């Protein structure tokens, strides 16, 4: 059984708001870059980039991060590590990097992403944008931009579906996780 938490319109509004917040906080798009975490963080970061272009008429740098190699559970066999390319084709120096991911949960993915990012250079700052923050942090990490806070039981499963990957836009909660 599942129920919808956000529909396509909600998602679109959230992205629009986050884009404005990013621009406001960094005083324009001049020295920011967006880095999406595979898989659904990539689509989010692309939408943010497009939105920012609409607002500022400026295309910001954009990169893709695969954090598989930085995971702390890789060798615990929790899941089949499927490796994809990391593409960061710009220098990180003097940039405010906005990491983008779909759901913020334990914080371990973001820890891995920050580590990965640091291997590419030394950004001025790293910020975090997520569509959903569902709590239950296991590391001292907090998001700078949140689409929606959704407090949930730890056992439940939140699923973000995005057009680019899944053919539709919505956020659902699985009531009975297996």
């Amino acid at each position, binding site marked *: 059984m599942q129920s919808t938490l956000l529909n396509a319109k909600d998602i679109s509004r959230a992205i629009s708001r986050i884009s404005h917040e990013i621009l406001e906080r960094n005083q324009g798009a001049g020295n920011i870059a967006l880095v999406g975490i595979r898989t659904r963080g990539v689509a989010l970061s692309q939408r943010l980039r497009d939105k920012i272009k609409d607002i500022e008429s400026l295309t910001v740098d954009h990169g893709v991060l*695969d954090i*598989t*190699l*930085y995971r702390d559970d*890789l*060798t*615990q*066999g929790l899941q*089949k*590590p499927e*490796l*994809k*390319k*990391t*593409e960061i084709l710009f220098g990180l120096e003097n940039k405010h990097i906005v990491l983008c991911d779909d759901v913020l949960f334990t914080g371990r993915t973001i820890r891995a992403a920050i*580590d*990965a990012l640091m*291997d*590419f*250079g030394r950004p001025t700052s790293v910020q975090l944008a997520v569509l959903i923050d569902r709590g239950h942090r296991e590391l001292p990490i907090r998001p700078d931009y949140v689409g929606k806070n959704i407090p949930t039981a730890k056992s439940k499963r939140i699923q973000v579906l995005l057009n680019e990957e899944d053919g539709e836009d919505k956020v659902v909660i699985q009531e009975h996780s297996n």
Partner: protein
Amino acid sequence: MLLSNQNILSTKELTKQDIEQILDTADSFKEISTRVIKKVPTLRGKTIINLFFEPSTRTRTSFEIAGKRLSADVINISGSSSSTTKGESLIDTARNLEAMNPDILVVRHKYSGAPALLSKFVDSPIINAGDGSHEHPSQALLDLLTIRSQKGELEGLKVAIVGDIRHSRVARSNIQAMQTMGIKVCVVGPPPLIPVEFKYLGVEVSHNLREAIKDVDVVMVLRIQLERQKQGLLSSLREYSNYFCLTQESLDKARNDILIIHPGPVNRGIEISLDVMESKHSLILNQVTNGVAIRMALFYLLLGEKNANPN
């Protein structure tokens, strides 16, 4: 399971799916070697032992760099410094090393089947880094990666392998792996260097270099060793070169986009001429780069598998 075997002993044991996964993974790893900080923490705390009973600089270094780029601790034990020269058997040596809990053993040995023998006595995954005249699977995989990077697809290609097929572990590994991937293989060289049994392995056999490479996509040139003359398998290197050295002239009937690979080290002017080696067709240096990526992929996939079944 990430691969169908816990050891990489031969390409014969690899399925098409295995090979595709190894090549795809290696493709992703190539990027790491271009970073300023060429290291990811993936295999932090893992120990890889390079156990080389036969001298090798290139292959050993390639495995070593691959391990280090993934943050594993890599220890090199070479034949001369190992205890096997003091009468300790191969198995004793490996068991002693295993007692130190390595996560992977990379083994190079002058005798065919030595890594297979070890695999019966140790639990750690073993990568065969070349055994006698048997196989050298990581070399074949890096050759496939090199070809795929240029051609996009492997299926349907034609490859000629030229040289000392009889003694070549690179040829055996490539024949098996290439056939698995749908590549047609032709082996080229003088009859004493191509046992008649090769035709049962499903390859074409030719003794005429120019004709054999007329319509191939890739020509792989093997190193020829001087000692074959003493064994009566060659008349002289000079005569060998006359017939089988890959020169601009011998390429006159070949396709314009022919690719040339060589597992190295190269005897310039004997099996391949200098100008061909340095021509736009030559991918010899790409092979070296791809070698690191392939070996990173093997480490990654083998250790992923090992830990996928925790007790």
